[in-house]
Structure formats: structure tokens, C-alpha cells
């Protein structure tokens, strides 16, 4: 288990993150990177689909609160993420596997570090679908 490296899907808003850097350069630095025009476009289904496809964590990078190019897209997503985090445990998924960060980094150099930090936090949990499900069986009625 020590060699386990979590697969983290990183959605990042184009208006707040890394717009000064060439997308090709960014793509080489960050694995599983999905640039989006607004974090508000990301739905709970996208996150769940990522887990189903084999991701161990989902990271969403949006603009600073109040600075969204599309008015309040980042707020909507944060709302969705927080609700989803409440629901995930009942499916046996640790809510820490979804993370949202509302900040600004035009150069985008910090994205890599944020992904690495999240990876370090997720590493002890192991791959998705192993530990959590056996540790916390879903309560059914």
C-alpha cells in the first residue's frame, strides 16, 4: 500500500487558474486535468462519474467568492460540493475525497501543489471502494 498514488481528477476554472500559462504546459504538469470555463458547470454527476471511472479524489478549483466571471457559478458549485459531501458517507465514500478550493492563481503554478497535498491526505485512505466500504457498511432500511 505504500506505493499507492491516488488518482485525482482536477477540474479548474479558466478564469481564475492558470490562464497566463500555456494549456499544453499545464497538461504536462497535472495528471487528469480538466479545464472548464466556469466551475459552475461541474455537477454532482460529474464527480460521481469520476469516482465510478476509477478516480480516488476530485478536486475543484474555482474563482474567489464574488469574482466569478459568470456571476455566481463558483458559489453554486461550492453549494453542490458541500451537499454532496453530506451524502457521500452513506454511499461509503469518505467526503474528504471531494475538495473545492475558491482562490486565484493566474500563473497556475500552485495547482500542482494543491493536487499533491490532496494526494498526501488521501494516501492513507487507500484506493476508493476498499477501505471505506468495508469499514462503514451502508445503513439500509
Amino acid at each position: 500500500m505504500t506505493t499507492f498514488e491516488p488518482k485525482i481528477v482536477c477540474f479548474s476554472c479558466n478564469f481564475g487558474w492558470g490562464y497566463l500559462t500555456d494549456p499544453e504546459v499545464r497538461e504536462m504538469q497535472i495528471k487528469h486535468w480538466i479545464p472548464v470555463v466556469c466551475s459552475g458547470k461541474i455537477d454532482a454527476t460529474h464527480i460521481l462519474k469520476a469516482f465510478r471511472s476509477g478516480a480516488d479524489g476530485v478536486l475543484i478549483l474555482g474563482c474567489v467568492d464574488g469574482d466569478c466571471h459568470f456571476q455566481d457559478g463558483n458559489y453554486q458549485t461550492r453549494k453542490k460540493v458541500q451537499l454532496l459531501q453530506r451524502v457521500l458517507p452513506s454511499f461509503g465514500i469518505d467526503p474528504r475525497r471531494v475538495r473545492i478550493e475558491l482562490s486565484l492563481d493566474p500563473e497556475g503554478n500552485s495547482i500542482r501543489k494543491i493536487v499533491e497535498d490532496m494526494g498526501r491526505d488521501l494516501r492513507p485512505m487507500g484506493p476508493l471502494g476498499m477501505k471505506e466500504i468495508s469499514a462503514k457498511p451502508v445503513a439500509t432500511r
Partner: protein
Amino acid sequence: MWKTVNTGAARAEEALKQFLPPCQLKCPINEDIQRTNVLISMLPLDPEGAREGICQIGDYLHERNPLFTVCGYVCGLCELECNYQAKGGSIRRRLLKRFISDAYMDRIREKEEINVEKTKEDVAIVGGGPAGLMCAYDLSRRGYRVTIFETSDRLGGALWLIPHYRLPEDVLTTAVNNLVRICEADVKYNARIGEGKYSLDKLRKDGFKAVFIAKGTPMPRILTYGREKVEGQELSGVMYGQTFLYEVSHGNIQPNYFGGKKIIVIGGGNVAFDVARTARRLCGETTLVCLECEDKCSKDGIPADEEEIKGAWEEGVQIVYSRGVRRIMGKGGKFQRIECPHCASVFDETGFNPVFDSTDIVNIDGDVLMITVGQGPDRSFLQKENLLDDRGRLAVDPLTLQSLNKDWVFIGGDVRKIGFMVEAMHEGLVAAESIERHLRGLDMRAGRKREYEPQDIPFRRIYKHEPEVVWIPPEKRLHFQLFERGFTLKEAIEEAKRCARCGPCVSCKACLAIGIQHSLPVVEVNEETCSGCGICTSICYYGSAQWRFKDGGTVSTTDTFRCKACGMCVVACPSQARRMIGDPMDTRIQEVFSTLGA
């Protein structure tokens, strides 16, 4: 660093119904305000890195408006219609533009001449003010050989009447001199068209196929009381405000010129305030007398801008409201005092028609009287060249600016209708289009008037308050250096971010220009699956997702003119009836998810 690519695509395209952001609608030359706001908001935070981006924005602005560096100091018309006005204060677009302008000054001097072969006809432009310069620039770009005939020894026209504390001299000279250099227009200084042998017909004989007259309003209006001219305007010590500003801008007046003197300025417009504040800076004890009252909301309110009044008041200009001038009195040919009856009402149904109360009269003493009650065109020239109609008005088509008496003459700018600088610039562009149509034998009127609707402000949770404009304190600003502080890079980015981006994507396309998006996606509704629940209408910030009645039920629709393709409705739709066409996100998601290896 991003690189803007200008494909010329960001412009208001012709359509049946078209929205524009209100700022762009208000701007007479329809500058892409939203686009530049977005670009400024995405500049790098370090000044070194930002320089390149600022130059790119400047290049883009310069291409549309070669006088934008001047606009950044004196215009700001767009701010009057900003949707944000009622939500915390208009976006300070003028200061944003000034920010670009300050950083662009060096670049403008290095800019290369336009690369157009001038194979078309010769066109003469009479007057080197904003209208004439814009017309010259636009015609040169179209391949015409342009000659500007300027009465004085420098270009800029009435812009020279703006005091240097508002518009620094080098900003103006750099803008106008480089404009004619870049468009390679020929300039003839001290060329007084209409005087002596220089008639319009002479120009025609010399081979000019069309003439644009933008001579402005060089004649100060004389002071009247009732319908009569007020006597005493020839006394020593009485002068006209425009003449005074002209002399000051030429550097003919020494500092401290009015030291220990009492100056009276008559007039309530912005020019009168320019005169009063300039006199104050020359150490005069200044009083401004105007007909109008201090309440700007009233029908007789003072026409000058709030900022001018505040600035003048802070600098110690005494303002006397609601007073006319009945007599100018002097002794030994020298001005002494004015007699001012109370003005009960300025405007009535017929327009300007002041009513005075002769029982309430005060006398105001002074050493110098400056009359600044408006200005007018050189009518004798227009008369002589047969450009007036039977009723003595300018015979010109307001849409095409073509003279009704001589079809090869076009008239625009202040000489036709006094207005703001950018309105004159707009007329210059209109005239250029008309001259092209006239010389190419095209229809003069087809497709020239377009109707646009201003877009509403989008809904959002947080509206931010406008930043304070920083002025040098009044006791330290009685000189001719700028008194307003510009934005720093950080402030400019913050302020540009505040812009709500009301306008439709087609008139902006900033995201395409810097490669954030590759095309503008379109939201499509599948009416078969749409349940008509209306969740999309409540999530849409732009009023684009709307209900429509269909077959006794409701379905949702998307107004493509309003839609920004943010995708919020697609995500919100519980029956997945909405999808985005031309959006690469789904493909990208599939690509990435397939590498996860579940």
C-alpha cells in the same frame, strides 16, 4: 502570458434583435468596453509581466480609437449608463482606460505607420480637432490620400481648451501627432480655409474630391440679457473664457498672473468651471456667477458636472447661483462691477428663456470678467460657402452628414452640433463612411442605422462598491499638474473584475481572444424531454432561460442573444433536456476518465 488574437470578430454584428451592454451603447463610437474590462481583469499581478498584456489591450483600443489615450482622461460617458450604477457605483471605465493609456504612451510613439497603399482619391479635411482627426484616420485606413487644413499651429482643436490639470499636455500632443504620423495624413498648419483665396471651390479645383468640414465652434457667444446684448463687453478687463483658455494652453499667461485680483466668471457649464478653476490656479480670487440653481435635479439645475462643481468648491471658487448679468459697469474704459438680478426661472416650454426678478439685485465687484456662456460656429464662413438653408441653419443630412447644398461637402463635429469629444469623433467616422460611399457611388443611407437594446444587469449575490477616486487635496493642487491619481495595476485589476459583464458574448469575445475558449458554445433545449419545470429559469443569471407556452403546457427556451453559455442551466436541469453544443468539456471529461482505468 496570454496573447490576444484579434480576428476582428468582436464587433456588434447585424441581426434582427441585438443586445449590447449599456456602456457600449452609450459610447458614441461603441468601444468594446466589456472586452477590455475582461482583459484588464486577467492581467498578471506583477507589473513587469503585465506590461505586455497592457500593450496588447492598448493596441486593440488604438486600432478602433486612436485618441483613446485622451479619452482616458476626459471622457467617461460610458459610466453614465453603467448597469452597476444603482448597485454600488458605475465601473470606473475612464480610470481603467487611463491606466492603459499611461502605460501605452511609449508604445504609441513607436507604433508603425499603417500599411495601406493610398490609391484612392484626395480628400480635404478642414479642422484638426477630434472629428477631423478621426475622419482622417479612418479615410487613410481605407486608402484615401488625406490632407488636414488646420487654422492654428497645432492639432487637437477644442481639446486644447481642456486645462492641463485634467489633460496633461504631452498626452494630447502624443496622441494627435502620432495619429497623423501613423495614418500618414498630410497636415497644413495655419491654413485658414474660407479666408482670402482659400475657398472650398479652390480645394475642389486643387483636386480634392470631397471635403469634410469640422471647424468646430471658435466663436464665443456674447452675453445677452433678455434679447439684448449686454453693454460693456468691450471694456478692458472683460474677456471670453475660450480665448482665455486658449492663451493659457499656449503658455502665454504667466503663473500668478491674477495674483491679488478679483475674477468673475459668468456661466454654469463645464467650460465656465474650467475657466474658474484655471483662474484660481493663476492665483485669482474667483467668483462664478450662473443663471442656474444649485439643485442639479431641478429643471433649472446647473449643467456642469458634479465633479467639476465639487472640485471648484474645494479649490475655493465662490459660486453664485441663480443670478443673471444685466449690466457690465466700468470706469475709464476699465471693468469694475456687474449688476446681477435674481433669476427666477431659466427654462420654460419654449426652452431657454430666463425670467429675472428686478427687485432683487446685487452688485459684484471685480477686476477681470470672463464670459463663458457658450460658443458657436463661424457662421460667416458657412454663409459665404452657401452651406446654410433659408432659415439660416446648417443644411446637412444628420444621418450621412452630407451637405444638402453641395454633395461633395460633409459637415460634422461641434460645428454641426456641440457635444462631447467622443461625439465629434463619432461624426468623423460617420463622415468617413459617407465620403467613401459618395466617392464609390454607393447608397448613402442603406443599413446605417441599427437598433440595439441595452442588456440588463445580471443577477448575482454580491455587488461590490465602487472604489474612491483619489484627488490631491485642494490646498496642494492649485497648479497645472494632474490632480487625480490613476489606478495602480492591482487597483485596475480589482476594478475590472467588478464589471458584471452584462453584454452578450458576440460583442466581447475576450475569452476567444486569449484562448480560454475556442468557440462560443450554444445551449440547446430538447423540447421532448423538457418537463417545463422552470428550474433553469430560476438559475439563469442573465434572463436567457425562459418559459414558453406550447401545446397547453410549458417548455423552456434559451434566448441566444442573452445566453453566455455558462452551463448553469445544463447542470440544473433535472431531466437533462439541456445540452451545450460546441463545448469541449464533455469530450475532455471522457478523455481524462478513460485514463483512470477503472
